């Protein structure tokens, strides 16, 4: 619709252009646009309430924009031929019903995409939930819920991973795991887009940075470009967002 750029054959390009979203008369997104490319980890940074989650929710077809487009491989999310194998998403919480077991949650997602049941054990092992798979999600700790969400996102081994504040609620070991894991995904040619308000945690993980504040993109480029003359990404971030809260 808007992307005139040819799409890479490997796939996994995220193109967001001119997103506007109003809620209750307030403009929470005012023309947000950026791109996330395969083989790179793109960090989507901004203070709380800047519009990160709204942008990701629109990208995933959960919310609608008043105008603008958010495309994966040139199509809106809702028209992807095989969403589970194309995009994996980790939003806040576990994304699972509390009275289901972790395994039962993964089973229905796998069925929706016709994935073999063996994938369930693979992703459970990958995130380290094998032992907790038979327990109800309501009994999970915060970190376990996040791991289940990650396992869900990885079921279809998608070419794009979208994560909203993936480090929230994780212990140091979990943070380390996610960081290395995301780097590996990018190295294998996949696209990783993650949002965060934690600058320090991100600097070592991301290749590209997009900074949003009050519903507007205030900077985008490679990590080096955005950091620019500032001492580090954190300083650059506060300079860009004029320290408007965390």
């Amino acid at each position, binding site marked *: 619709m808007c992307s005139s750029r040819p799409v890479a054959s490997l796939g996994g390009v995220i193109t967001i252009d001119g997103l506007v979203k109003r809620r209750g008369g307030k403009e929470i997104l005012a023309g947000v646009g950026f791109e996330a490319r395969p083989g790179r980890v793109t960090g989507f940074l901004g203070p709380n309430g800047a519009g990160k989650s709204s942008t990701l929710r629109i990208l995933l077809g959960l919310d609608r924009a008043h105008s603008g487009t958010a495309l994966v491989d040139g199509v809106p999310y809702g028209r992807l031929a095989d969403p589970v194998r194309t995009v994996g998403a980790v939003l*806040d*919480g*576990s994304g699972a019903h*509390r009275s289901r077991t972790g395994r039962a949650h993964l089973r229905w997602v796998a069925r929706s995409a016709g994935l073999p049941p063996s994938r369930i054990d693979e992703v459970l092992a990958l995130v380290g939930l094998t032992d907790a798979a038979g327990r109800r999600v*309501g009994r999970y700790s915060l970190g376990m*819920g996040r791991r289940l969400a990650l396992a869900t996102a990885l079921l279809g081994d998608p070419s794009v991973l979208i994560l909203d504040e993936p480090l929230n609620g994780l212990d140091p070991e979990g943070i380390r795991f996610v960081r290395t894991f995301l780097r590996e995904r990018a190295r294998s040619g996949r696209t990783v887009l993650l949002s965060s308000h934690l600058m320090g945690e991100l600097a070592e993980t991301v290749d590209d940075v997009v900074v949003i504040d009050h519903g507007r993109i205030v900077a985008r480029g490679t990590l080096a470009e955005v950091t620019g003359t500032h001492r580090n990404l954190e300083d650059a971030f506060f300079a860009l967002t004029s320290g408007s809260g965390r």
Partner: protein
Amino acid sequence: MRAVRAELAKLGTLPSVWLAAALALVVPTGIALLNRGVPGPDRGYQELAFGVMGVIVLGVVAVSSEYLTEGADAGGGRQLTTSLTAVPSRVRFLAAKAGAVVLVAVPLAFAATAATMAIVHVTLAERAAALDAGRLAGVVCYWTYTALLAFAITVLLRHGVVPLTVLLVNTSVVSVTFLLTKFTPLAYYFPDMAGMRMFVGRIGDDGVVIPPLLGLLVMSAWVAGLLVLAAAVFTRRDA
């Protein structure tokens, strides 16, 4: 008292409580309007007996809202955790909540009774039964007790769907408890069947006659028993 005020504030800010209030007024008056022109000794009182839906909803949501995990981003956080860290004494917390429910239910019952009786007297004029202070007090008492019953059962079950279903189905014209009376006369001593005696003269074919005062006692016993049980269970289990 501060705890009661906090509980009142919680109730006042729950949309479902306002819905409950609206139901409490609309249901009995609506039934009274539909039944207009049919005189009888229990006109008005019967409508109020069937119209308790509002206070049932009130009693249920007062508790179930504490346990709610539905909604956009609740994410497993229950309000109850906050409540119990603010008011750590479980008995005080429960008493404050029950007190708040009573403080909302009583005026609602008064308003609903006044509105329903007004409609009955306007539509039936001189054919309407004369007002009787004792019976009217019975209505207010029945409504308040019903709210507390819903409250206590929801505390026991920690979930609103079952008590709401059972109690609402039971406000149907031919209630389940009434059906049970055909099976055993003991069913006349269910809280609703006994409580209605405070203001409704005849129930069905009346196998057993319970005077209003006994009705009051029976229902009081049920409510007190369930509240004590709810408190006992609530203080013993993990939040």
